[in-house]
């Protein structure tokens, strides 16, 4: 499938008879990036699948009203982030055992996950990330793994670039300490 530009996708969504083709292009071009962004937050494949489908369904419902005041990619990332965090919150609420640590539970599940293929150091990194405050973990994922610019992360999270730089700096320090223990 030849690739459409962002402008072509948005024009297609607003053109009667072209919406399906435009949406198929959007799914094809963005699904993997969105999947891996969500997966790094929720860790589990089935949960990621749920959040990704919710993200793309929301995009379908809202695209005709997309004003273009941010890039399409940024807008999709924002929806994906919110869906992932919502799913995490719901998951943690369902862990009803008293005194249970949801992040520890996620770390334990990761170790047994058949869809986790990392080596020992990668597992230790994921466990270390689970110990970070949620937003710091998000910033770390987007900067370290996704190589997003601070401006882009700022658009997605609605946080100033300065605050993001500080957050990333602290995240790196904490992870370095945890990995060296």
């Amino acid at each position, binding site marked *: 499938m030849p690739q459409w530009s962002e402008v072509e996708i948005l024009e297609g969504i607003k053109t009667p008879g072209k919406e*399906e083709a435009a949406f198929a292009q959007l799914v094809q071009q963005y699904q993997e990036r969105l999947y891996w962004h969500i*997966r790094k937050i929720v860790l589990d494949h089935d949960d990621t699948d749920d959040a990704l489908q919710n993200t*793309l*369904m929301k995009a379908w419902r809202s695209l005709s009203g997309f004003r273009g005041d941010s890039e399409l990619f940024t807008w999709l990332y924002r929806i994906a982030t919110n869906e992932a965090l919502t799913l995490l919150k719901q998951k943690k609420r369902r862990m009803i055992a008293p005194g249970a640590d949801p992040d520890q539970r996620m770390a334990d599940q990761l170790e047994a996950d058949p*869809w986790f*293929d990392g080596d020992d150091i*990668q597992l230790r990194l994921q466990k270390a990330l689970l110990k970070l405050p949620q937003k710091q973990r998000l910033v770390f994922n987007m900067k*370290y793994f996704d190589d997003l610019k601070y401006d882009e992360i700022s658009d997605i999270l609605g946080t100033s670039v300065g605050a993001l730089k500080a957050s990333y700096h602290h995240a790196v320090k904490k992870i370095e300490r945890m990995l060296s223990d």
Partner: protein
Amino acid sequence: MKKERTSTLQQIPGLKENPFKTPEGYFADMAERLKQEREKEGLIREEKPVRRLDSSRRWIAMAAALAVLALVSYPLIRVISPSSEMQSLEELALLERSGLYYNDYILVAQLEDGALDDEEAFATLAENYLTGSTGAIDLYLEIE
């Protein structure tokens, strides 16, 4: 010269690699699964094949579009300044009552400004106008 400290994270080989994997064919199936989901919710929109006109039909489509536009747009051009964006609800209401939409207003403005001198661009606009507005294009394409 102060040496820049390199993070440990940059030094550990393979640390940045993706440790997660997906079931086979997962991404290939996504579009179809979404379509089924949208069908369940009644969110599928009818797909129309986009037909490209050959050059002679394109000229006829252009002429037809110009004729229709001339009929309905002249009084509007007198009222609305073509070099500015729509400023008021009154202008919007006037366009809606005339059956023109915002994209048609832009077409009128571009004609007035002399900005449209690209045959291909104008033919496409004319085609979209006929396809979107009156259904005349369907009637036209049946004529040999």
